[in-house]
């Protein structure tokens, strides 16, 4: 088990993780400023690592992205969602090992599945730590669900199920295109290259 974990964390994986964290933050920040929608696209880097290096490196990328985001933008309230990002990495890595990134339709299905998982993990964090709100536009959705009779946990879950699957599907498609654009020679340097290289 330890040997298998170690074989995923090669030097090139470690470098990829640090670059992927920065991709998450820079792209996530641009999307936030530009689109102002309940989608974030802040996990492209996590998905790339999970596909090329496996579930655990992907999970580490996600969790550290949130922690570093919190440090650099002086906002500790982002940090608890590192748990969500960790799970996104795990699920994506597992789905990638089922070869979903070799076919655009399966890629989309994988995005939806990951979105549902992300919403399920985020909901209790948002509900119990932050009273169901995040201080952004999606809070209107939470209010809407509460009016229809949901409790806070159900309302945050409802909000997440509206925005996360869409967000993750877009992320998966973008990541899929990027992976398709890289040369086989480049991809083959990573431990889980067989997840994307067609033989």
């Amino acid at each position, binding site marked *: 088990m330890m040997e298998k974990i170690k074989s995923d964390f090669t030097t090139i994986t470690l470098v990829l993780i640090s*670059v992927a964290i920065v*991709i998450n933050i820079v792209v996530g920040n641009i999307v936030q400023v530009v689109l102002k929608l309940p989608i974030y696209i802040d996990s492209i880097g996590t998905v790339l690592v999970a596909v090329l290096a496996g579930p655990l490196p992907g999970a580490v990328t996600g969790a550290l992205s949130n922690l*570093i985001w919190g440090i*650099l933008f002086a906002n*500790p309230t982002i940090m608890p969602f590192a748990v969500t990002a960790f799970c996104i990495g795990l699920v994506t890595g597992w789905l990638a090992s089922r070869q979903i990134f070799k076919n655009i339709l399966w890629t989309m299905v994988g995005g939806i599945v990951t979105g549902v998982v992300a919403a399920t993990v985020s909901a209790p964090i948002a509900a119990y730590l*932050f*009273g169901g709100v995040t201080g952004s536009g999606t809070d209107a959705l939470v209010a809407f669900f509460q009016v229809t009779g949901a409790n806070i946990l159900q309302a945050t879950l409802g909000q997440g199920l509206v925005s996360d699957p869409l967000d993750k599907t877009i992320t998966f498609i973008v990541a899929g295109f*990027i992976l398709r654009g890289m040369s086989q020679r480049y991809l083959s340097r990573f431990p889980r290259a067989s997840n994307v290289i067609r033989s």
Partner: protein
Amino acid sequence: MPVTLFAPKLSYAFFLPRTSPLHKFHPLTKLVAALCIVLIGFLASWPHLPLLLFVFLILPLAAWGQLFRDVGRATLTVILPFVLSISLVQGFFYPGATHVIFSIGPFALKEEGLLFAYRTLGKISVLAGAGLLLMFSTHPADLMLALVQRGFPNALAYIVMTAIQLLPHMQAKATAIANAQRARGLETDANFWRRSRALLALVGPLVFSALIDVNERALALEARAFSAPCSKTSLKELHDSRGQVLARWAMLILLMVFIAWQIWEL
């Protein structure tokens, strides 16, 4: 006002060097203290404890660390959007609330909702305040070194420090790509669909060029014996003391006692 596309100004504010005693503490002492404060704030059943912790513990500590204004201002920046959101959403729509304070049309402000908002805001200020105090008084490199010395993998320190140093470079690259695409006629101030397409024209080149760097960085690291199986010497030295070791254990025991007491009270 047109929406300007690729100019999100990033203001990094992670470590603020001062000559205070707080800055000289061992990073682990501050980490344990911050964790204990946050957990106590969140687990307390008494609704006023979080706010009291913030005013009578976090703010004085910040003043002691010569960071009173910085921590105060940054905490406000973090919690202001929450204040508005949670007062509106939970004040008006808190599930099961009945005590109406006043109503505007079909909406009624209710007492239970406001009380819930007050408790939650207290908790969020404790999380934000304690986290910011730790981040402003401790350099991330010192914190990473302290964790590596306690058995965390070296790779963790490498990843975190590289990412922090890489971010300004990647941000500069993003701006350069945006300008280049704009020079080729990319519309950056337009309606939503145009802006979404413009986004792809930025994200594509940015991610590709970053990924191509990965290979070269890995080769450079390997050439410098990055993965050599031996213990590494650090250029930095952290100062710890008997008193701080005791203080850390004392804080952890206090936390355990507090949790046990809260469970007893249930």
